């Protein structure tokens, strides 16, 4: 991995650093930068400058007595000219890159003069990033910074050496563990596992919500499909019935069409007419017969008993001639007699007496008989006359009937003839156009009924199909649920797989990393420590470290401050070997706690152990002795001196 390096650090009016000052840390040959300066000269503030720029905070307390926070960012000497309420600003710019600059992180800050004091303000982090040959200002500087050196691990790259001895104080195992896991990125694996498990729980919960009713719906669809099949079969039958009836109709039509030959048609027509005619005549005959019967019934008796009638009439005429049927006038004669009171025989007559009674009886009898007989005289001849007329009528009707019968007979003969003629036309003589047409009518009506039926069935089919569709939609929804269920199960399996894989990776890497760290730690420690002893260092699974001296005693609890610092430095160096971050290292006072003798050794060896990484040491005069300088010479890239005068520091190249 190509590690990023600090290219240039630029300061303007930051604390001791008045004006614009630039620290160029590029080099083609070395990786080691030394910035030498006394305590209070602003050495630690260089570290602060970087963290202030990156993370918006200063982490190191200066050696001076005053609380850093209360001091203005802006160089005090510059601030002096400020009036109340005015402000001045400055900036810190950190340039990073590999062979060439790639990132320019910058943060401005301001100090306001207020009453008797000052307030500080910092601006947002800005970034210029090289993309190809252009510099662009991305919207998210912090994201980019995060990719380079996140705040949480920045302590392993930008730190104060004098704090290192505290690293292996009580509770160090956690610090060791955190350092290893964070720097190696194994912590990412842990986080992934943790997050996967949380997601898994969520998804499992979803799975339990998906109980489907797919089975029921499938049954419903099956039923409906059976119904549909039935209906379709009905429809098919109806259709074929319609077809066969229509075929029948066509057949009739064809027959009727066959009768399109003019001659044949004429014969048919004639036959039809004859049949009509015959019907009419037969009906007429019926009427005539009825008439005749009525006449017969009236005239018959007269005719049959004509002898008696004649005799009676004759008798009455005789009696009349003989005067035995007095005229009606004689009736009043008796009335007169009674009135007169005297009969012609001389008997006295008066109303009420016997004689008158008798006469009245006689009158009645006589008149009755006379009247009757008189009636007979006129009635009988009249009857005879009427009867005679009726007989004539009967005769007439009989004649009519006879001629009609004749006509009917000849009509039937003709029909027979026609039949025979038609035979020669190969048309069955029993073809009755009327019947055909009746039949046809019937069939048409049948077809209509069937068509209605067809329509009804089709509608029923539509309804069933629509029901099937909606049930199917429901089924799909359920299946989708099932599907989703399947899907979810698939997802859960997948998560399990991924989880298992990540754990495997963690297992194997962790072992490697611990091993590597242990090895390096041991190696570095042995090389850096000034003692002429070989130590065995063990890094345990619980991240505790044992430092075994040649006697096998674990010295971890009894290391001196210097020794702890060395151990810590070794550890930091070991970390770079397993690091997932490609950031440069900057250490303030790396050898701070170490006494002079070991310093030499460390100074000589330390650069070796952080290969590929740019290191910048901020050293005091006591650390950076001539001897140390000499030992580091071959690895040196840049040397700077912090000249502190009048509360102002100037960075001076110390080539």
């Amino acid at each position, binding site marked *: 991995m190509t590690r990023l390096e600090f290219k240039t650090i630029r300061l303007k009016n930051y604390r001791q650093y008045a004006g614009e000052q630039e620290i160029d840390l590029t080099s083609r040959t070395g990786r080691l930068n030394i910035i030498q300066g006394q305590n209070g000269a602003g050495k630690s503030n260089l570290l602060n400058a970087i963290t202030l720029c990156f993370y918006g905070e200063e982490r190191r307390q200066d050696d001076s007595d005053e609380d850093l926070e209360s001091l203005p960012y802006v160089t005090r000497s510059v601030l002096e000219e400020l009036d109340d309420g005015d402000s001045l600003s400055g900036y810190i710019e950190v340039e990073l890159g590999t062979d060439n600059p790639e990132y320019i992180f910058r943060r401005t800050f301001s100090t306001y003069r207020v009453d008797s004091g000052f307030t500080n303000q910092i601006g947002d982090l800005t970034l210029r990033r090289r993309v190809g040959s252009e510099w662009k200002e991305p919207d998210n500087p912090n994201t980019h910074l995060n990719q380079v050196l996140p705040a949480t691990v920045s302590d392993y790259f930008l730190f104060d050496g004098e704090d290192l001895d505290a690293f292996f104080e009580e509770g160090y195992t956690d610090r060791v563990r955190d350092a290893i896991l964070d720097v190696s990125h194994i912590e990412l694996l842990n986080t992934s596992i943790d997050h996967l498990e949380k997601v898994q729980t969520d998804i499992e919960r979803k799975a339990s919500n998906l109980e489907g009713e797919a089975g029921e719906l499938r049954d419903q669809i099956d039923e409906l499909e059976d119904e549909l099949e039935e209906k379709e079969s009905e429809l098919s039958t109806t259709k074929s019935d319609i077809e066969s009836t229509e075929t029948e109709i066509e057949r009739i039509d064809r027959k009727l069409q066959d009768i399109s030959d003019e001659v044949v048609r004429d014969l048919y027509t004639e036959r039809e007419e004859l049949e009509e005619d015959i019907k009419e005549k037969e009906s007429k005959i019926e009427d005539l017969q009825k008439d005749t019967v009525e006449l017969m019934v009236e005239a018959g008796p007269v005719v049959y008993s004509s002898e*008696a009638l004649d*005799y009676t009439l004759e008798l*009455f005429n005789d009696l009349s001639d003989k005067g035995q049927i007095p005229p009606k006038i004689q009736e009043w004669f008796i009335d007169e007699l009674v009135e007169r009171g005297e009969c012609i025989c001389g008997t006295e007559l008066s109303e009420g007496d016997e004689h008158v009674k008798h006469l009245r009886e006689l009158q009645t009898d006589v008149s009755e008989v006379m009247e009757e007989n008189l009636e007979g005289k006129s009635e009988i001849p009249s009857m005879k006359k009427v009867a005679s007329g009726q*007989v004539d009528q009967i005769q007439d009707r009989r004649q009519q009937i006879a001629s009609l019968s004749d006509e009917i007979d000849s009509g039937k003969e003709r029909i027979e003839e026609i039949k025979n003629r038609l035979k020669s036309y190969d048309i069955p003589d029993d073809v009755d156009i009327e019947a055909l047409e009746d039949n046809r009518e019937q069939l048409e009506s049948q077809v209509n009924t069937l068509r209605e039926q067809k329509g009804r069935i089709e509608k029923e089919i539509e309804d069933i199909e629509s029901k099937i569709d909606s049930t199917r939609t429901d089924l799909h929804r359920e299946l989708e649920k099932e599907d989703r269920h399947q899907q979810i199960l698939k997802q859960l399996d997948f998560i399990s797989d991924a989880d298992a894989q990540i754990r495997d990776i963690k297992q194997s890497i962790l072992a490697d990393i611990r091993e590597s760290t242990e090895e390096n730690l041991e190696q570095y420690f042995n090389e850096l420590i000034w003692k002429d002893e070989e130590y065995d260092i063990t890094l345990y699974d619980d991240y505790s470290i044992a430092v075994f001296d040649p006697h096998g005693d674990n010295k971890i609890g009894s290391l001196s401050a210097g020794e702890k610092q060395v151990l810590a430095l070794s550890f930091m160096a070991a970390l770079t070997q397993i690091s997932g971050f490609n950031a440069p290292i900057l250490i303030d006072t790396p050898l701070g706690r170490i006494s002079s003798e070991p310093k030499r050794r460390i100074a000589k060896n330390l650069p070796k152990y952080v290969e590929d990484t740019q290191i910048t040491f901020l050293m005091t005069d006591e650390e950076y002795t001539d001897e140390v300088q000499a030992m580091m010479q071959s690895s040196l890239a840049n040397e700077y001196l912090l000249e502190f005068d009048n509360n102002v520091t100037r960075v001076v190249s110390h080539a």
Partner: protein
Amino acid sequence: MPEESSGPRDIRIADEQHHMYQELTEDEASPFYETTKTDMFVFAMGYGFDQGLRTEITDSRRALFQIRDLSSAQDWNVRAIAVYEKEDHRVLQDKSEVYQIAVEYAHGGMDQLYKRYTSPGDFFSEISSEIIQYGTQRLADD
């Protein structure tokens, strides 16, 4: 001495002949279809007279119709037969006898008519031919 001149109310015929009247007047096939019982009786009477078929009725009798249903011509037909039968116009005073004679002729006449009706042959045409024949002969005198 004149007898009761009111006479019987109904024409009463033999029980056994009722079905004949029924058939002849109610069968569609009968030429006398839809003829009234009264007219049928008169016809049978005339026919029976012509054929000389006066027959006593020995069995029980039942009314066929009321005498007042006869038309006056039909009534004179009845009287004429009675007068002829008795050769005396004074029979007319005995209405019972008059109708008795009528009934007995009708009885014989209906028997014959029914026989002819139920036998093969064109009953209608035969009867009507007869009537025409007699009619033209006997009534032509006027």
